[in-house]
């Protein structure tokens, strides 16, 4: 203990020396100038000692010097601020400049926690709000409620680190305040020791310990340390208040400090002074804070309503989607893509047969508003029976003499038709998607055209067309079979009509015509058998045609046997037709 006192004595001596230099000038120049020249020598010899002795005796030097010092310091601050700041700065900024390691953070966290625990019902409310806002509790307190808030003030005995008195903003006793005080002192000792003396010989001390949202302000005095635990960023005013209070406490409790033996009962009433330091600054817009829960509840209600609306909307859109999608079942319409973004934005991409119901009509029929539909329509040729029937209906207008009837999917033609018209009709039916061979023509009579009425060139052209058409007809046989069957009937019927027409044209054009029927076979079995089979196929075809009314005299039958062409030789079971025609003039 004696050692410590002498150390702090030394320190104050050093400080006094510095002050002297600033105030009195180098070698007390200012003082000596002010004194009588004769006295100068005498006084200068003893002045230092005299000051010391007198101060020791009745403490009066301090009283005398204090106003002078204050004035001088004030003067210095205005005129030599650089000098002052450079000697004060190491004290102030020590912690900022030098990191004391992770334990400080841990320490703050610990204290933080304690502060958090110290909140009562108010704390719970804040906790809820912090949770609502999704930030940490401390952060919330700092950012939403206060610019800063001094939570605790500790008055700590400098020498022992024992807590003399603690006051709290929320009138609640702080159980661990003694421990925090001691630890703080220990840390302060540690920091002071680590930093050693600075170039001015002043021991650095911890002044602040800070995290983002929390600050410990530490003001050391000769007998006691005052520590403020502050949430938020304290302004300079807090520092000043701490300094004032520290000085006041030292002034009032000098006696008690000297007597202190660990019993903090001596400092029971110091809270009067310490309470001055429990400064807070609330954010001005506190009123809006109170509205916050309402706002939050409103948001929640809105969110629920919004979700409900969304669900309903989704359901409605889904239903609409299904309704519109039904257009896909409409004949001659194929939906490629449908997006129901909203009731007011529907994009529909489809393919539509020109004969199909128009999209707009369909929407009108379904009573779905069409004006919100962005339609992308492409044409296509539908083979849907409904559409084919519609097409045939349209076509039938061109053939007023014929009846077009439907038995299920089968088209029945009734009436009399000129051959050329019949040719046009079959060609048309084919383009409409109807195979002419599937048309029921039993009640259809095809009459020879009045070929004479046509010009030679036209007849010549029709003649060549017919020759070509006849040669495209082929009958297919199954393996080993030579019988003309039902499936070949319509081809043969067509052939018969074409050949009859051809014959009449040939007459007109002075030509002689004959029908050549060629049978073929695949290469299974031996050659002679195949020759015979192919011939038999051709002959049977000829018989069938004669039955239909062709003149056997005009038909030549031949069997080609196997067709030794690489790609067809295995499947060439056919009967083919060709026309031989000879110009009469050539004979």
């Amino acid at each position, binding site marked *: *203990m004696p*050692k*410590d006192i002498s150390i702090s004595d030394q320190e104050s001596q050093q400080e006094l020396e510095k002050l002297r230099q600033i105030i009195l000038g180098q070698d007390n120049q200012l003082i000596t100038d002010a004194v009588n020249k004769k006295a100068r020598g005498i006084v200068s010899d003893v002045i230092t000692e005299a000051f010391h002795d007198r101060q020791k005796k009745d403490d009066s030097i301090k009283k005398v010097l204090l106003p002078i010092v204050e004035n001088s310091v004030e003067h210095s601050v205005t005129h030599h601020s650089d000098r002052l700041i450079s000697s004060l700065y190491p004290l102030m900024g020590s912690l900022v400049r030098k990191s004391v*390691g*992770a*334990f400080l953070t*841990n*320490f703050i966290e*610990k204290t933080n926690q304690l502060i958090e625990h110290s909140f009562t019902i108010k704390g719970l409310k804040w906790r809820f709000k912090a949770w609502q806002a999704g930030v940490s509790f401390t952060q919330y307190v700092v950012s939403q409620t206060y610019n800063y808030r001094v939570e605790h003030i500790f008055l700590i*005995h400098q*020498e*022992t*680190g*024992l*807590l003399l008195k603690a006051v709290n903003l929320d009138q609640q006793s702080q159980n*661990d305040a*003694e*421990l925090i005080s*001691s*630890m703080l002192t*220990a*840390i302060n*000792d*540690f920091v*002071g*020791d680590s930093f050693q003396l600075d170039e001015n010989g002043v021991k650095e001390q911890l002044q602040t310990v800070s995290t983002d949202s929390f600050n410990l302000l530490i003001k050391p005095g000769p007998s006691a340390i005052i520590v403020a635990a502050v949430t938020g960023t304290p302004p300079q005013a807090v520092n000043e208040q701490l300094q004032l209070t520290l000085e006041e406490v030292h002034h009032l409790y000098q006696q008690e400090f000297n007597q202190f*033996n*660990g*019993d*903090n*009962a001596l400092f029971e009433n110091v809270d009067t002074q310490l309470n001055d330091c429990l400064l807070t600054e609330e954010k001005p817009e506190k009123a809006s804070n109170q509205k916050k829960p309402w706002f939050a509840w409103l948001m929640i209600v809105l969110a629920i309503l919004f979700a409900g609306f969304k669900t309903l909307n989704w359901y409605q859109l889904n239903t609409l989607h299904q309704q519109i999608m039904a257009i896909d079942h409409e004949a001659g319409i194929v939906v490629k893509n449908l997006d129901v973004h909203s009731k007011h934005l529907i994009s529909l991409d489809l393919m539509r047969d020109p004969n199909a119901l128009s999209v707009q009509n369909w929407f009108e029929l379904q009573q779905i508003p069409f004006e919100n539909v962005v339609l992308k329509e492409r044409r296509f040729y539908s083979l849907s029976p409904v559409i084919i029937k519609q097409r045939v209906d349209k076509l039938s207008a061109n053939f007023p003499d014929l009846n077009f009837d439907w038995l299920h999917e089968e088209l029945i033609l009734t009436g009399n038709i000129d051959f050329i018209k019949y040719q046009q009709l079959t060609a048309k039916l084919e383009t409409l998607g109807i195979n002419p061979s599937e048309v029921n023509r039993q009640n259809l009579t095809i009459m020879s055209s009045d070929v004479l009425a046509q010009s030679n060139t036209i007849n010549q052209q029709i003649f060549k067309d017919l020759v070509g058409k006849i040669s495209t007809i082929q009958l297919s046989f199954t393996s080993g079979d030579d019988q003309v069957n039902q499936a070949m009937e319509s081809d043969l019927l067509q052939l018969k009509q074409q050949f009859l027409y051809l014959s009449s044209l040939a007459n007109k054009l002075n030509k002689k015509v004959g029908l050549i029927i060629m049978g073929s076979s695949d290469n299974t079995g031996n050659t002679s058998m195949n020759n015979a089979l192919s011939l038999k196929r051709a002959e049977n075809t000829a018989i069938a045609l004669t039955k239909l009314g062709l003149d056997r005299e005009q038909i030549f039958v031949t069997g080609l046997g196997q067709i030794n062409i690489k790609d067809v030789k295995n499947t060439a079971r056919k009967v083919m037709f060709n026309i031989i025609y000879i110009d009469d003039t050539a004979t």
Partner: protein
Amino acid sequence: MIQKKICLLGASSVGKTSLVKQFVEGIFNEKYLTSIGVKVDKKVVNVAQQAVQLMLWDIEGYDRYNVFQDKYLRGAAAYIIVVDQTRSTSLIEGLEIHSLAQKANNVPAILAINKSDLQANWHLEDSKTIQYQTLFNAHFNTSAKNGSNVEEMFQAIAALTLQEQ
């Protein structure tokens, strides 16, 4: 309430931290011991109907420069030198620290001969070591493991600090 600062000193691994742990339940992380070389815990004991709050400073024996950390001794009302009865070197080190501590802060001191639950390697009552008894205000054979004499020792040191006033 009366509070007293008590320091625990001694070579490393003698059981200082364990003794405090046996005696109190603290709030601070052991990390402080390694980072700043000290951890403070507290415990209230009653001495003749007088409550005393002990602030127990558990101090790591030596810092990394092998210098005794006398700064933490400042303001202590008493201290405990802890030694390990299974290691005679711990007694030598403890005595060394004791003499340094006396120079820094001449206050009452107690010798805690710890790990009494283990086989002893030396005895304070031995002719060679009996003289060291006089250097301390009291001595206790303690065990941080089974708690033997721990309460008594802290009780005694509390009483010592009150006598000293």
